[in-house]
């Protein structure tokens, strides 16, 4: 008996009450690495006094964790996975909250010849035709979902030595691309945060395309293994409302705005 008490007491020394704990936000590496997450957490705390604990995963993993009831609300950039989550009945609502765009980055003095108006799609096609090294995230992330969408539109099923799968987040993948002098797709915010440390340059950037849409997805309390905290709704109202949207617009790194509030009109 004493024995069990000893074990329990060691454990209890470390336990605190989690009954009405902080909000568990499931989100993606791009938001942490760009610094936006910290900015939003601080703003939300200042307004509502509620701490946010961000669990940073790939978009695919976020929805898995949401299904298991381990996070209260999701902030991701994988429209297809978000819609599937809602259609499965696990998710309640999906609201686009901010966006930026994707880029193609690659070695300096790139061997890729493109005309000035080339789109990401055109660039991927040329890369594939010339069998130049390209790194795919292959980690179930929103960036990978976007790459898959472009490739399937082009009817390309990449394989071979020039198609490298990193299986890692955006930052490590950029570093890998820099070391291997390969090409990769990247979001605008992560590129801004990392470019100084890389020997890579921008190959194609089309801000007007606004392809990278981030959305807030709420979890259905009736189907989840554990109903989300009440503060999830508060966060939803805040981020989709004027105060949250202003917090996104005003966020800058090195004088550059990284995200635009609202929904990209071109979203499909």
């Amino acid at each position: 008996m004493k024995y069990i008490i000893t074990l329990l007491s060691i454990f209890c020394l470390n336990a605190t009450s989690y009954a009405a704990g902080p909000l568990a936000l499931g989100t993606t590496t791009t938001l942490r690495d760009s610094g936006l997450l910290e900015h939003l957490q601080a703003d939300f705390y200042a307004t509502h006094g509620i701490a946010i604990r961000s669990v940073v995963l790939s978009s695919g993993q976020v929805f898995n964790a949401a299904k298991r009831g381990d996070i209260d609300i999701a902030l991701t950039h994988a429209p297809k996975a978000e819609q599937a989550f809602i259609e499965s009945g696990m998710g309640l609502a999906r609201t686009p909250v901010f966006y930026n765009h994707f880029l193609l980055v690659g070695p300096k003095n790139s061997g890729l010849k493109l005309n000035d108006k080339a789109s990401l799609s055109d660039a991927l096609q040329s890369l594939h035709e010339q069998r130049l090294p390209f790194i795919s995230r292959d980690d179930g992330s929103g960036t990978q979902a976007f790459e898959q969408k472009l490739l399937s539109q082009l009817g390309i099923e990449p394989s071979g030595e020039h198609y490298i799968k990193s299986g890692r987040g955006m930052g490590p993948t950029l570093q890998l691309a820099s070391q291997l002098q390969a090409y990769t797709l990247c979001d605008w915010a992560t590129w801004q945060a990392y470019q100084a440390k890389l020997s890579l340059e921008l190959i194609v950037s089309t801000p007007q395309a606004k392809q990278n849409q981030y959305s807030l997805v709420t979890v259905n309390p009736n189907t989840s293994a554990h109903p989300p905290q009440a503060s999830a709704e508060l966060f939803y109202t805040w981020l989709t409302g004027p105060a949250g949207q202003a917090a996104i617009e005003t966020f800058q790194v090195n004088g550059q705005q990284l995200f635009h509030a609202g929904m990209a009109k071109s979203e499909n």
Partner: protein
Amino acid sequence: MSDLSQSFGHALNLLLRFDSNLWEIVALSFRVSLSAVMIATVLGLPIAAALAIKNFPGHGAVRILVDTLMAMPPVVIGLVVYLLLSRAGPLGIFGLLYTPSAMIIAQSLLITPIIVALGLQVFVPLWAKFGDQFRLFNTTTRQNLFTLVHEGRHQLLTVWLAGFGRAIAEIGAVMMVGGNIDHYTRVMTTAIALETSKGNLEMAMALGLVLMLMALAINILAHSFSRLQQSPN
């Protein structure tokens, strides 16, 4: 080379300035791994003693199992604990996933087999030495256990340090069940991985050096303590 010396300077600077972020991470690492090693000791030593003292059916199988569990990769332990503690899992009602408690549970499971297997190495020769006397004086099992632990305390310190070393250096399990949440479940190893992935190699290396310095300090303490106790003999 300049990278390394720069990192070293950076590490010392962070330590001496008592950088609050750094100390928070260091403190959590110690809290988690010390708790884990205590739980593993309380669980593991009696098992080791029982294996050393008693011969029961399946004795050999248990020893093979313990040795096998020693080779269990931290990520696998992490995955098992994740599935157990997740809200959808059997222990989900406690809401322990992504908390320091979850990290302690995972690390305890990771190092208990190490404590058992290494503890056994200490107890077997001791039992060979004292077993007959115990039988002669007809002592209770509990008295036997205390005598064995007391007699083997110096070697057990090494066992304990091995367990602690394994726990504090481990990343796979704490990353999976803790989630590397800033100011909450971020420990030294997950912070090093994060800083490396962000390309802040200097900061990552500084954290690594802090980890090494801490390990050095603990070992110096442990060994001088052990020598102090041994000197009167």
